[in-house]
């Protein structure tokens, strides 16, 4: 890549696979379970976290030399909270229905461990550009998993993608439903997300044995 040095590119690419915040670091599980029943909500959640983590990392990185370390958590919280309120208001203004689906979970981005984790582990010790890339990378890694989980849960649970029926009409029994297929109600409930995430972790680790932790 000409635009980024190899080191910088790794900041973005690592969290997408071998250092994924959800499947490897096992952070941010709460929202991954709660809002992935629909693909649309997953995408919006991913974009929100992308914004909050990207901007937040830059802000914390710029402030890193003036934040007294005793109160750094409070400062971090204020930064996240400010950004989350911005996201929340934008959603309410431009996508009201969606903001109702996401409900409290937008607000809960504040407590998403991935964000605090990146602030603590990366932004406090690196420059703004690197922090920005790290934030984008981790948010993308989070988003990828959210979208994969959302894809399977919505497809198998409701037979739709982004709310558009893709398998036919379950009531009029067209498409796949004509053969007796039925939506899987289990995929709608949050425990299903846990199992889908588990399967992703399983697949990822069986493809790359180096990721398996010592028992």
């Amino acid at each position, binding site marked *: 890549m000409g635009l980024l040095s190899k080191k910088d590119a790794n900041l973005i690419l690592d969290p997408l696979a071998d250092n994924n915040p959800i499947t490897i670091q096992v952070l941010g599980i709460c929202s991954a379970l709660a809002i992935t029943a629909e693909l649309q909500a997953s995408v919006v959640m991913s974009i929100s976290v992308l914004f909050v983590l990207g901007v937040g990392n830059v802000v914390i990185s710029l402030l890193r030399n003036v934040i007294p370390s005793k109160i750094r958590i409070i400062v971090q919280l204020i930064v996240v909270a400010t950004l989350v309120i911005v996201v929340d208001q934008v959603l309410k203004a431009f996508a009201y229905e969606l903001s109702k689906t996401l409900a409290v979970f937008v607000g809960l981005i504040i407590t998403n461990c991935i964000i605090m984790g990146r602030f603590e582990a990366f932004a406090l010790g690196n420059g703004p550009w690197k922090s920005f890339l790290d934030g984008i990378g981790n948010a993308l890694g989070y988003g990828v998993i959210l979208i994969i989980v959302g894809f399977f849960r919505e497809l198998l649970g409701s037979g739709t993608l982004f709310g558009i029926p893709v398998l036919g009409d379950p009531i009029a029994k067209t498409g796949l439903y004509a053969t*007796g*297929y*039925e939506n*899987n*109600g*289990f995929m709608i*409930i949050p425990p299903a997300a846990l*199992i889908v995430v*588990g399967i992703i972790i399983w697949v990822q680790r069986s493809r790359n044995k180096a990721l398996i932790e010592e028992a």
Partner: protein
Amino acid sequence: MGLKEKLHKTKLKYQGKKMAPAFNAIHTFLYAPNETTHSGSHVRGADDLKRTMNTVIMALVPCLLFGMFNTGYQQDIAINGAPEAFSLMEHFLTWDNFWLGLITILPLVVVSYGVGLAVEFVFAVIKGHEVEEGYLVTGMLVPLIVPVDIPLWMLAVAVVFGVVIGKEVFGGTGMNILNPALTIRAFLFFAYPTWMSGDKVWVHGAVDGVTKSGTTDAISGETVLGYLAQGNTEMSYSLSDMFFGFIPGSVGETSTLLILLGGLFLIFSKIASWRIMVSAVIGALAMGLIFNGVVTAGWIPEYSKFYSLMNFEFWQHLLVGGLAFGIVYMATDPVTGSQTNRGKWIYGFLIGFLSVMIRVFNPGYPEGVFLAILLMNVFAPTIDHYVVRGNIKRRMKRLKNATIYPKTSGEVEALKTETV
């Protein structure tokens, strides 16, 4: 050269190959292998895993056969109404009933075993271990705990889920936390609730809208528990119907009599734990008595939605639904249950206690027994842990209070260790 010798020969060809486990599974299933013990102890118990599994399957066969007759009988009475003077030979044990049951239930058994064993084979080949016998009992239990008309593809999906997520991810037979058969049922229940509850699925043909002769009403049939959960108090089935099993329900769970006989058989062959069975029955009776007491004391008004189930005679809980079946065949699973004797008492008691509680308090889950067993499966290791800790503590106390008379002061320590 007979098949047996041929298999012994072909085994050598497969040795060390990738498909060896798959071949060995077929080989040992058909014949005793021609191997002798190479080292170590040459004296073994005859009741190995395969024998244990086969004994449980034998105990399940009467339930399966009864289920086949009952499938036909239930459809018959749903269409033509209950016979005025019931005669076992004329109305129940008929060829028509059996044939209808056979053609509806045999596919369930075939799908359950076919899909389940296929998954086991795939995992054995990938991981390079022998195919384990663990699925033999699960495969027989699954068709017995689902409604007759469950679509076969749903059963197949659930079996794949149950065997992979319920068992293989934990390391296969003997390592699973949850009972795989119940995992399969739980998956079906939450994934396709319309096929696992209500008044349509328990009688064969009701979903397709088989109509009563002479009328346009489609047939339906409800389980006793489903009926009570809707607030009805009048019982349409007699006690003997419930005991002998002439009621709608999952395929093999209806006949309490046959389950009782199967349970006794398992106890006398020392396959299943009588402690778990007895304590689970006690637990169910205790919870039932508490609910009956609440009704008698007048703490709950008649219009309450719990009233009819709470008012249900405490001992009759054992006759309806899957409680008896669950206690005898599922709770006693040696892998997922408690291992210590005292733990078995606690584990069994809570299964019975919680089953009746879920039944009464959540009309949406009249079959609370499978949830209760799964829940206690999760807690079984915890129970065992505290039983073992308690035992250690008691013996430490005994040691502390023990009066030891040493001849010389140097012998004190030596005697102490012996007393423990």
